[in-house]
């Protein structure tokens, strides 16, 4: 039994490593099409809409400390319903009628890839 433990740990590690794997090209395309106009293609919050007079900076997804304050459910909810649901700016649009649940789930995984963080646990 004791001999099996490291093996089990290895297995779990291997599996979760597999889950954190890079998202597919389709998800990146979805991000670049809908989100990059404000958040930028690298997710740094510097898309072409963000001119000097833009009222509020779109979230920089590569900032680990900021992104770690959000749970995956927080992210999903704000994508679905827009900024105001999280007391954030309405400049963050609601995408619930535009994107499917699967597309939104895969965007959450992609944002975690960009921040290289797990986020606050639920």
């Amino acid at each position, binding site marked *: 039994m004791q001999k099996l433990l490291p093996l089990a740990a290895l297995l779990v590690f291997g599996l979760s490593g597999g889950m954190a794997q890079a998202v597919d090209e389709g998800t990146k*395309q*979805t991000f*670049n*099409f*809908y989100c*990059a*106009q*404000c958040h930028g*293609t690298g997710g740094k919050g510097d*898309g*072409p*809409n*963000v*001119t000097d*007079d*833009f*009222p509020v900076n779109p979230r920089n997804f590569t900032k680990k400390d900021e992104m770690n304050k959000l749970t995956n459910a927080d992210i999903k909810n704000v994508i679905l319903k*827009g900024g105001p649901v999280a007391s954030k700016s*309405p*400049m*963050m*649009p*609601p*995408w*619930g*009628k*535009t994107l499917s649940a699967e597309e939104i789930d895969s965007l959450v995984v992609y944002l975690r890839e960009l921040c290289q963080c797990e986020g606050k646990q639920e």
Partner: protein
Amino acid sequence: MRIAVIVLIGTVLAMLTTASVRAAAGEQAFSANKCGECHVTQGPAQEKTIADQLAKKGPELWYAGSKFQQPWLEQWLQDPKPIRPLKYNSLSEENPGDHPKLAAGDAASITEYLMSLTSADVEVGVIKPKKNPKGRLIFVKKMPCSGCHQFPGKKFKGGRSAPSLHGAGKRLNPDWIYAYLKKTRVFKPIRMMPIFDGILRDKDMKSVAAYVASFK
């Protein structure tokens, strides 16, 4: 009496034929000028994926007669000033402002042709342009419209990823603006703008359409 009726019918027929003859000439001029290389004139919308939208070289024109106002269209074809701040389907390049220009004759006949391409999904006479506080509140405060669209704002001039809405009151048919918000998938099954039907109430879509239609 009978003669008067015949004359009247004759005149109406003649007017109809000149309009349709001009439209047919316009269709020919449209293909002679190779406009079809970048613009689809055959509806309904075919795009199913993001790649389909990105493959397009110019905006679809199959509902041009419902979308545009005739005087604006005829004038713009002769002097095409940029509408989108950025190059079509690009987030990094500026609009090069190199749209083909037409001489007055071709512009008139092609306008006639494009105005004949209408969509039954645009209900006529629903929206009257009006600078209304409700529409303004939605556009600049409650919804992110200004985040992507340039508009005649006081401090914030608007985002750059979408067509500018300066002059929308001269360019766009108010009824089309409402139909575009309400029946998005008919006109643009794949677009960078969120679908607002189901998020905004019907009367809010009408208010914001009337507000946009008031932009000078």
